[in-house]
């Protein structure tokens, strides 16, 4: 792994300082942006004319539907919204990678068992379904319980046939298994039209290890060499007229992330530059694919570094460019920025405009992170209008852009033709291999939609995945989803019940309402805590500023006498606090939650400084504390309301809950704010007085949390904090006669000591709530995606330096995939940055103190001696620090 070297505080740890963001922050209110986009697109478009141009295309496609094997036809028969379509998608995602037949049978049976494949349509796929998939349903054993030998033999045949069906599906989307094959296929397709171009995409998941990145690099390099060779036959052609390549930066570096910016600039940029140099020498188009929103700023840093090189070393190259996603609310500003860069470095770019392929995951991410708004539009028509406004912007900047419009939407295409004519700007269209075939067939046949029927001279570039069918899976599922989504043009085109007027309806309108709640509203009626995207300068700056100023207090340990006094004081305050109406107690918690939200930066900084949390962990923890406060406020009001019970006439029966007395809350250092706050808030809001003892390593943040609650109205006597060692103060609190309950999070061993101490006491039997450790396991079978497993394992086992009670300790791998996954895990773990947590780049921070360090070191030594005896697939890296 990488040890971060610079002990000084510097978030990027190097001289490449990024002070400003290139673009507006991504989480802005949507409607204002939509209004601007609609206005600017409406100013240059005549929609009725667009409908006139596109109508003949879509009518022709409907009259003469694409071949039975095309995705559109298939999804018409098995829509993703139905169990059959879903089963198909899920089989397509997993089946081809399963190495062992027993698991393949279980998977197939499981998925087919849910679906009804006895379709009645004709065509090959449904025939396949009737004969193969339909049959398999009848012969397959119940999912995980293969019955006897006969059943198994039958099942194997069925699985083999299903595998073939999925391969058939896959074949539609790959142009060739190798670049050589793909080039040959491209050549043969070009015989039908001189105006066909290709951009090859080398398939695979993003790199998790340097080895992955090396492999992808080699495959891009090999592809570009072959493209150069092919292009050498017609050297006078520019990049507009020859085949090119598309690359994904996430494939070329295992840590292509904003927090690892130094490494990205130092390690990734030179690699990409090598590919660029080759593409420049061959005068072909090289496009950097667009990926997730949180990588956009970083991708622009990389892009600018490359542009600088282009200007210096091959200023004549006109084939460089990147993909721009119109579904991002920042796309118009992005185009302005990229245009400005192109002018600054005097390079003409080829830029692909797409709507964007990760819509669902961007929405999920924003919700999970509690972001202020979505970074992408939340209405399909808003993405469409953004696309058109962006297209106009690209077409207007002829000096620096050769725009490449990637879309399968007939309305969008007709609008492009209209605008391009108006601005008299050259451009090309792009489609994905295996998609949009019908619409593009009609465009080629009819010309640019201006009514003339002569053959089109418009160039179309096909984005053509190259690779084995096994590597296609993730891509294939994206395409299935894209084609299957109800809002998708391809989907609606194949659905005869969607009227053509509706299909081509203008997107230049504003949808004022949405079914998609903002991230803060997904838990309504409770407000979700607001998070921070650390890749956004304006959001992380307050955190870093707070770090510079925050002080960690070091309170003196309390004595046993002080502990006893606190118990007595709390006990005296109990009755009055119990009698405060629950609504008021709940309100105080909510008030504290709001205050903590407002002070999130300071609390994060405190956690980083005192508890050695990474910034990401700190943000999550403060959010958790806020959530606890609001959740328990709601819960208390729910459970403390009197419950009327049934009974005989002449009698009223009511059940009521009330506080028990003084609770002792003992919390650990690993979540010194969230667990502390959770325990305290729960006890308080139900009407108990509290004496809380934070871990001796982390008292400062707890004291701050308590002052927040006091400021919110909780009486000082009803909530007291006592700092010090568990063995002394903790033990004194637990043993005190006034204890009405103990809530403890920590080790199993200490929980037992507390339990015994409570049992030994005279007086009432005192309840104990204990949350202790775990030997947490993860079971992985051979249907799982190794890259996905590696992500989950690395996060679960190593994040927070493994100092979470939920952390993964024991990974159980199916033997068929164990070697591969272990190898990948070693490679991925090697890429983690270990060091001081104030650096944004740090993934694995220190252990909490020297005792912990000594303890874990001893375990590592022991395992080294035991583990050494076992056969290991990658002994070089096993067990190495």
């Amino acid at each position, binding site marked *: 792994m990488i040890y971060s070297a610079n002990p000084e505080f510097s978030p990027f740890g190097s001289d490449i300082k990024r002070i400003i963001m290139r673009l507006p922050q991504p989480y802005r209110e949507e409607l204002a942006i939509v209004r601007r986009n609609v206005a600017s697109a409406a100013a240059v478009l005549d929609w009725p004319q667009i409908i006139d141009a596109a109508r003949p295309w879509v009518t022709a496609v409907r009259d003469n539907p694409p071949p039975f094997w095309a995705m559109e036809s298939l999804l018409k028969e098995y829509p993703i919204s139905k169990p059959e379509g879903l089963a198909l998608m899920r089989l397509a995602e997993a089946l081809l990678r399963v190495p062992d037949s027993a698991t393949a049978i279980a998977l197939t049976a499981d998925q087919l068992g849910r679906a009804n494949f006895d379709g009645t349509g004709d065509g090959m796929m449904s025939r396949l379904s009737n004969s193969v998939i339909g049959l398999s349903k009848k012969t397959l054993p119940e999912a995980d319980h293969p019955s006897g030998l006969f059943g198994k033999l039958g099942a194997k045949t069925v699985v083999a046939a299903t595998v073939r069906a999925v391969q058939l599906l896959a074949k539609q989307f790959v142009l060739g298994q190798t670049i050589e094959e793909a080039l040959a296929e491209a050549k043969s397709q070009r015989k039908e039209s001189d105006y066909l171009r290709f951009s090859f995409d080398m398939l695979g998941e993003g790199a998790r290890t340097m080895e992955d990145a090396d492999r992808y690099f080699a495959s891009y390099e090999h592809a570009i060499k072959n493209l150069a060779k092919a292009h050498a036959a017609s050297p006078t052609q520019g990049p507009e007229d020859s085949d090119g390549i598309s690359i994904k930066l996430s494939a070329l570096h295992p840590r292509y992330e904003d927090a690892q910016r130094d490494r990205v600039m130092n390690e990734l940029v030179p690699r990409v530059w090598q590919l660029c140099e080759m593409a420049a020498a061959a005068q072909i188009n090289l496009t950097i694919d667009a990926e997730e929103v949180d990588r956009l700023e970083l991708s622009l840093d990389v892009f600018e570094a490359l542009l600088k090189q282009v200007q210096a070393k091959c200023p004549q190259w006109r084939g460089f460019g990147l993909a721009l996603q119109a579904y991002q609310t920042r796309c118009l500003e992005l185009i302005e920025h990229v245009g400005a860069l192109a002018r600054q470095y005097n390079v003409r770019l080829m830029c692909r405009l797409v709507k964007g392929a990760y819509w669902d995951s961007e929405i999920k991410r924003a919700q999970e992170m509690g972001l202020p708004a979505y970074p992408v539009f939340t209405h399909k028509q808003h993405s469409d209008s953004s696309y058109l406004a962006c297209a106009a912007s690209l077409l207007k900047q002829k000096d620096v852009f050769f725009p490449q419009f990637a879309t399968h939407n007939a309305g969008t295409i007709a609008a492009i033709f209209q605008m391009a004519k108006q601005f008299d700007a050259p451009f090309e269209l792009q489609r994905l291999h295996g998609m949009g075939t019908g619409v593009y067939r009609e465009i080629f046949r009819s010309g640019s939609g201006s009514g003339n029927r002569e053959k089109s001279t418009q160039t179309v570039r096909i984005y053509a995945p190259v690779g084995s069918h096994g590597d296609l899976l993730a891509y294939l599922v994206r395409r299935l989803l894209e084609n299957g989504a109800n809002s998708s043009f391809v989907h609606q085109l194949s659905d005869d019940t969607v009227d053509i007027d509706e299909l081509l309806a203008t997107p230049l309108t504003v949808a004022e309402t949405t079914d998609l709640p903002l991230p803060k509203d997904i838990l309504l009626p409770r407000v979700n805590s607001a998070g921070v995207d650390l890749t956004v300068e304006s959001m992380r700056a307050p955190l870093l500023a707070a770090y510079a100023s925050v002080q960690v207090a070091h309170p003196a340990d309390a004595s046993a006498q002080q502990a006893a006094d606190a118990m007595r004081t709390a006990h005296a305050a109990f009755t009055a606090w119990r009698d405060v109406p629950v609504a008021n107690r709940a309100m105080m918690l909510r008030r504290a939650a709001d205050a903590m939200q407002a002070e999130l930066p300071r609390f994060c900084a405190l956690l980083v400084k005192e508890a050695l949390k990474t910034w990401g962990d700190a943000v999550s923890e403060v959010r958790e504390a806020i959530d606890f406060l609001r959740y328990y406020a709601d819960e208390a009001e729910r459970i403390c309301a009197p419950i009327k019970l049934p009974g005989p006439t002449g009698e*009223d029966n009511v059940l009521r809950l009330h506080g028990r007395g003084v609770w002792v809350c003992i919390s650990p250092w690993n979540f010194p704010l969230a667990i502390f706050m959770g325990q305290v808030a729960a006890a308080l809001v139900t009407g108990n007085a509290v004496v809380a003892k934070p871990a001796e390593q982390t008292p400062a943040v707890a004291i701050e949390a308590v002052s927040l609650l006091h400021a919110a109205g909780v009486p000082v006597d009803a909530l007291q904090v006592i700092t010090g060692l568990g063995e002394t103060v903790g033990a004194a609190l637990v043993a005190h006669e006034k204890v009405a309950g103990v809530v403890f999070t920590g080790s199993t061993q200490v929980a037992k000591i507390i339990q015994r101490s409570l049992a030994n006491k005279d007086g009432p039997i005192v309840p104990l709530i204990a949350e202790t450790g775990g030997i947490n396991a993860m079971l992985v079978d051979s*249907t799982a995606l190794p890259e996905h497993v590696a992500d989950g394992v690395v996060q679960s086992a190593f994040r927070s330096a493994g100092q979470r009670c*939920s952390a993964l300790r024991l990974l*159980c791998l199916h033997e068929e995939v164990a070697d591969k996954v272990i190898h990948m895990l070693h490679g991925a773990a090697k890429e983690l940055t270990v060091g001081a947590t104030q650096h944004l780049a740090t993934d694995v921070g220190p252990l909490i103190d020297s005792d912990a360090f000594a303890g874990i070191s001893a375990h590592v030594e022991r395992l080294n001696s035991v583990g050494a005896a076992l056969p290991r697939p990658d002994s070089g890296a096993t067990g190495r620090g």
Partner: protein
Amino acid sequence: MDAATHTIGPHIFEIGSIADVKQEIFGPVLQIVRWSGDPHAVIDQINALGYGLTLGIQTRIDSRAESLAHRARVGNVYVNRNIIGAVVGVQPFGGEGLSGTGPKAGGPFYLPRFCGEQTITINTVAAGGNVTLLMA
């Protein structure tokens, strides 16, 4: 490893069997075992460790995920994702066995444990008679 800063990088060990794991190691140390055959037997061995906090299951076989989760005696099961970062009110957190007493923090059964309960029964006919019944 760096004793001065207390940092230990990620460590990965392969061990012979699940039963070899005797104790929780509260740091960046991962142990790996291989299995074959029936995954339910693996869950039984995990249960036998006596803890029961979190469990990850990575499979595309939905019925398998369901039945393994059902068999596992753990508080928080995560399918096809990481196993950390439980969210309040969304994934109430806490386990059983050596992992704790429950109730789960951030869940609907947490607060009642902090409370005493009282029923009040009032004989409404003491003063005179059963007005409700007679007036109905």
